């Protein structure tokens, strides 16, 4: 009897609590932030960090797009390893798409979240406009690599339920990015309270510096259009200079990795590859070293070093200028016709070729340069040469080269760990160099853009883009390597991810239809008019 009663009570009790009582509280995640309590400045920090090139502690986008392809295509570096296909123009779809694969669903999603969630909050107007400016920088890099890309509908999978974003034409993207920069820069208010502060790891949320960044980025975009739309290019270059671009290296957009945490994406991505996961694969390119040697460039010992055992990541090597040696591009270790040992002047061991200096660019705590005064000055010099803005081309050239050489001071001041950093290039050495290599109006475009090439060492996305728009420096492509996919020419773009035809087929096909040679590495993006 008791049991029956007990059970009846138990059943009644269970049901009196309702079939779905407490379900809403049960279904609330107690361990994660919701839109109600999220502070979006932390997404902005992530967006900045990931854009610096190491989204996943494997540094895949940096490794594959920036180094394996970018650095060797542009002949800053050289590799004999089979999977380093950039100077042999062989194809790897996953390496082509690594940057896209690691940013759209990460940094771009974050910046879109930030923009969408701050746009209606007047107390965060500066934050909102800073985010818009940085978003332009992120998309500029993406579209320069791939051409037409999802832009206006990108990153809106949750906010607007767009799961197959259309590909915007690069021409339209450029137009919109320029307008965005113009509008956002104009709305930055130096008097408004700073809601970002240190969470903005580039400028600490300073609207004045972000304004300069916006106009310097505007100048970069303007100059990019020089081949395809000189009229627009000129107009926007003028607007940029009028708005106020960088005026010293103090304005540089730099992300420090000095408090890096080992084994996490906070390490400098390039360094993580060159002195971490893939230390023996890359050497300085013969093209690059020969150029630096030919001009007695004081940067050579900062770029290179010769290590007895490159695989030993702690081997700092000997960086004296005299023994630096560039490895020719286009060779392998296969023992056949392209074996490095058959290269003219082979020094008998690959260890004798220079690797990237592990006390400057290849330090784990080396800063990442997003956009610099050196680049801006050189672009201004070119704009003067083209007669688009007024000023002294020689002065801009001198300022640009000087700023580029001062980068090593900037590195030294932004590293914290061992080893003790190399001190920067003495002012006297810079003066000596400029005296020996003065501005030459007769060869101005070549000279300016070759300096731009040197100044963008390891920002290979930028080095490659600038080479594609100007053709300088005059690189000799590697012909006839077996299995090359570009008919022996330096690639002009990266291919889309192989997932796109499956997940976003209609839009993908439309974008491919606009390419002059299909979804291949030798098709041209819009501003890279063949």
């Amino acid at each position, binding site marked *: 009897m008791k049991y029956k009663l007990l059970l009846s009570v138990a059943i009644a009790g269970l049901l009196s609590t309702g079939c779905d009582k407490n379900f809403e509280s049960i*279904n609330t995640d107690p361990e994660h932030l919701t839109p109600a309590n999220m502070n979006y400045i932390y997404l902005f920090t992530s967006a900045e960090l990931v854009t610096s090139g190491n989204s996943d502690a494997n540094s895949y986008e940096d490794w594959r797009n920036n180094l394996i392809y970018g650095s060797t295509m542009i002949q800053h570096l050289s590799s004999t390893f089979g999977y380093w296909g950039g100077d042999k123009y062989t194809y790897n779809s996953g390496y082509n798409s690594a940057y896209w694969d690691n940013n759209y669903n990460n940094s771009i999603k974050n910046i879109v979240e930030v923009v969408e969630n701050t746009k209606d909050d007047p107390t965060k107007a500066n934050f909102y406009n800073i985010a818009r400016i940085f978003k332009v920088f992120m998309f500029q890099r993406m579209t320069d690599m791939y051409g037409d890309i999802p832009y206006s509908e990108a*990153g809106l*999978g949750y906010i607007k339920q767009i799961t197959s974003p259309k590909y915007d034409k690069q021409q339209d993207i450029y137009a919109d990015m320029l307008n965005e920069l113009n509008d956002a820069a104009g709305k930055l208010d130096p008097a408004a309270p700073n809601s970002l502060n240190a969470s903005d790891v580039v400028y600490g949320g300073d609207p004045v510096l972000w304004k300069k960044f916006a106009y310097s980025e505007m100048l970069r975009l303007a100059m990019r259009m020089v081949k395809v739309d000189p009229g627009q290019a000129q107009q926007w270059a003028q607007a940029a200079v009028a708005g106020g671009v960088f005026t010293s290296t103090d304005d540089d957009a730099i992300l420090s990795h000095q408090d890096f945490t080992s084994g996490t994406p906070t390490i400098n991505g390039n360094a993580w590859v060159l002195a971490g996961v893939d230390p023996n694969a890359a050497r300085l390119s013969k093209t690059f070293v020969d150029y630096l040697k030919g001009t007695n460039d004081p940067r050579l010992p900062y770029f290179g070093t010769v290590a007895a055992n490159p695989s030993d*990541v702690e081997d700092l090597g000997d960086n004296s200028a005299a023994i630096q040696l560039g490895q020719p591009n286009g060779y392998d270790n*296969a*023992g056949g*016709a392209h074996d490095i040992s058959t290269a003219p002047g082979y020094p008998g061991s690959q260890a004798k070729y220079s690797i990237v200096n592990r006390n400057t660019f290849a330090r784990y705590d080396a800063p990442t340069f997003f956009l610099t005064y050196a680049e801006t000055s050189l672009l201004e010099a070119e704009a003067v040469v083209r007669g688009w803005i007024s000023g002294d081309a020689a002065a801009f050239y001198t300022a640009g080269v000087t700023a580029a050489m001062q980068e090593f001071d900037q590195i030294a001041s932004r590293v914290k760990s061992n080893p003790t950093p190399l001190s920067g290039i003495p002012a006297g050495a810079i003066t000596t160099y400029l005296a020996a290599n003065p501005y030459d109006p007769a060869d101005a475009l070549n000279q300016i853009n070759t300096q731009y090439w040197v100044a963008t060492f390891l920002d290979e996305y930028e080095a490659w883009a600038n080479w594609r728009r100007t053709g300088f420096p005059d690189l000799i492509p590697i012909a006839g390597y077996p299995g090359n996919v570009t008919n022996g020419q330096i690639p002009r773009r990266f291919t889309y991810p192989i*997932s796109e035809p499956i997940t976003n087929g209609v839009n993908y096909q439309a974008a491919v239809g606009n390419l002059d040679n299909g979804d291949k590495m030798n098709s041209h993006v819009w501003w890279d008019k063949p």
Partner: protein
Amino acid sequence: MRKAKTIRHALACFVCVLVIYSGAGYAQNDIAYAGGRNKSITNLNKEEQKTDQKEKLLTVLKQLNETKGVYFLFSEQSLGNKLVNPVETSEQNVEKILTQVLKNTGLKFKKINDKTFVILSKESNNSKSGATAQAANFNIAAEQLKGVSAITVPVDIITGKVIGADGGPLPGITITVKGTRRGTSSGSDGSFSIQANKGNILVFSSIGYVTQEIVVGDELSINVTLQDEKRQLNEVVVTAMGVKKQNRAVGYSTTTVDGSKFTQSRETNIGNALTGQVAGVQVGGVATGPYGSSRVIIRGNASLNGNNQPLYVIDGVPYDNSNQGASGQWGGADYGDGLSNINPDDIENIQVLKGVAATALYGYRGGNGAILITTKSGARSRGIGVELNNNMTFTNVIDERDYQYTYGQGTQGVLPTTADIANATAESAWGPAIAGQDAVNMVGDHYKYTAQKDNFKNFYQTGLTNQTSVALLGGNDKGHFRIGLSNLYLSTNIPNSNMKQQGINFNSTYNITSKFQVNLTANYIFEQVKNRASFSDAPGNAVASTLYVANTFDIRWLKPRVDSNRNELLPGNQDIYFENPYFVAYDFENKTTRNRLTGGLTMKYNILDWLYVQAQVTRDGFVYNQRNVTPNGVQYSNAGGGSIQLTTVDQHELNVNGILGITKKFADKISVNAFGGVNSQDNVWNWTQGGGGPFVIPYFYSINNVSSKPYNFNYTHSRVNSVYGSVDIGYKDFLFLTATARNDWFSQLNPKTNSYLYPSLAASFIFSDVLRMPSWINYGKLRASYAESSNTGAATAYQTVLTYNLQGYQLNGQPLGYVNTQNIPNQNLKPVSIKEFEVGLNMEFLNNRLGIDLAYYDKKTSDDIVPVTVSSTSGYNNNTINVGRLRNKGLEVLITATPIRGKDFTWNMSFNFAQNTSKIESLGSPDVKSLQLNVPRFGDGVSISNVVGLPYGQITGYKYKRDANNNIIYDTAGLPLRSDNIENLGSGVYKQTGGFTNDFHYKNFTLSILIDYKFGAKIYSGTNLVLYSEGLQKTTLQGREGGYVGKGVTEDGKTNTKAVVAETYWNAIAFSDNVAEEFIYDASFIKLRSMSLSYSLPKSILKDGFIKGVTFTLVGRNLATLLKHTPNIDPESNYTNTNAQGLDLAGYPAVRSYGFNLNLKF
């Protein structure tokens, strides 16, 4: 209830309350009825009136024999003349009638079985000990009741013992002397005595056993072993929620697999042991290693990308079988599932519920079928018994490699003559012809350039499995118990890897009163695994390295593991992910432990003989710890600095339920079994992970030895409340109808749409009981059912809103936030819907020696929850929505036969066959044609996808481009062009599966052979792709000298004559211009899956000694592949147990095992 709810929802909840309160109302009525016992006055009068009109017992029993088909035995012939009450109403069951007939006559009856009753005089049976003795002296055989026959005077008393095939005593066996009225039944210890003459035939019979006849000879002591009757006619089967039913009353397909099928040639994972055993149960051929996960699919994949595996229930406790990690595109280890936590020695039997009608009572999680595991109990034992079992097997890797050994390591035909060249070509067999030349390896040592065919033999070792189980069991009239202890040690073929598992299984039932029963089951397991193997992509994958090294490369060169700097000694320096297998085996570390307790407490109270209540609490939970160390010196990660990661999963499911049920017969024609109940299921999952690197002090692998160790925590909590009910109605024992319904409420769903109802209806018709059948047809049953269910419910908690998280590390002191998911949250998720219609036929022929069981089903899934892979440019990788529609149709055939049944020799065979046809019907929008499930490491456009209009799990990829005459078209460089589009290359899911079992019993020997087969699936072999590229595959011998000229035409239609360097040609097909078609193989196979030969010591040797039974068995598993089409790999080489079947790449090699099993009973 909140006001915001829809009316529909409010109504549903109201109904649920109503059902239960009316149930409670029932209970109150019963209390009144039971307590009052107030019979009506008219009844009393009737009883009195009848007392005078007595009849002879023999007359009454003859009448009952004719009308009810039952037999009677009684101790003295004189009893037949006793006067008893006449039959009042024959509409009742026999027990009721007998109670009434024998009332106030000084007689009573005892039920031997459903068809046999013994009449006893009350006085003669007062002492308890006398019951057995009395039973031995009944001397009127049931058959003789119909006529008067002479009673011969028996001379001898034959005594003996009846035992079962397992050696245990069989009580209650009917023993008759053929041609006489003499009969008896065996006692509780199986012993009997009967008077018989030399030459008489003794017949031993009972339901569930094969009837045996023995001629009485000179021997006065006869011991008889009865074989289990394997036919399902009168078998009792376990159905959903643990309800036991006569098989004849079941209106859907269900199969019982005896526990012995798992104990002989055993698999560590019980799921894998089901292969070939049950029609329609497909065990995926997964190369996940001996402690990896299994994949069991019943009646096809019912979900596009959700869970397709059945619900596992152990002794009524839902059992979590989720796997803790599988290999994927980028490699990784398989961390196993729940099924390796079950000791086969504890399994009494496994009931496979295939269709939705069978499982609809499990509500939202019945849609994939259910596997009910019943553990052994002490129910059959009297007193205390001990059972001891030891199983020891050895495993060897089956070397499936069939490489070319004509050309050796190198590239472009160049011999490795320097360490640099050797380093650049470790994975390349494009060198010169092998001729014993002097060559140099990657460390600079000179060696003779000869074929190295023994790399497998040299690297892999013999594995050992040793499982010891001890069971202590006992029982008496009040209850019974069984405690099983087990210890498992398993070492694998990859060195330095093993598993240790200790388990305790407890199962006990106790009758506190005659009406109140308590059952407690508990299964505790402690499992430790050292170094689970990684598959697919190369990092940390010992299998890959062993497969990939060039054919003149001696794997033993890698034995030093590290170079002089203590860095990993790689086979070559061009691919830091292509690792040293010895380093992987000895220096990498992954260790897992699992503490798991699964148990349930059930209390049942029989309020009346037709009314019961039951309350149950069950819990299945485990704590799982995982420790991964990437060692110092590894070349690909953390600059050789190493890293460590510790993971803990703590999860449990708690179920509380109550049932009120009735079992009643009306007018002796209609039987009713019904129950209603409620259940609350609560699931909690905690996940913590911390770790970091590099190690501050190298080679000291502790989490305390890394300077920063980000810590992550995840938690989910969900609840499902349910109300359910079931009604079984039987008419005259030949027509049965079962209706069930269950309503589930999910916490994970939007509160507006969180209630779902799952009904079922099933009918069974025993036509052989109604229609006149030829004598060679013994039994015939038709069945039909329809039911609705689900298989994923609402997936995991918190999928409806967007959340954010912070990284476990900072940048320059600044926190880093991120969106917590790559899955677009969806407010409108609802459970998957599965609807199934099934018809079936069971027939038995030729004196039950031939049986057939057929089933046809049509199963439709709609509203499938699909994480549609979306363009990552949306910011997300997946969008989880209810869009999928698919259908599975199939036929299942089981044929059982006993070709030979003799005194000494019996041959049983069983053949099962299943065909399942699946079709993806819709993925929502008409624009969406395919859903990608997974992609392999290598291959452009290659994926496993569900494609609209095609069977489940298509392998996609490029084909060769062909002209109208099917000629391959070549470009000007002589390389084949590939199709313009990504094509569908066939399904990775088998269409036809089955098995063929033969059991031969000869005296004390039993030989069992299982052959299983699967047909109609394809596999994309990444292994062969790599071997093409490396020049190890035999196909790549073509064109080595003078180049390869592809057979086909040029783009302008002329015959292709362009020769391409073989290395370039085969590499292009594998990598740069990947043609997936080339690597698609037919995965069909026939295998000699298992074989065992056992010998039981005859009872005559054991006598009545301390030892009751000894069985020794030689066992073998995966003994031979009789048919396959896949070069270099086993056809069952899928490296994961996920839905994406059809991908091979460096999975665990197939293994053959052989050994012995020893079983002792005390």
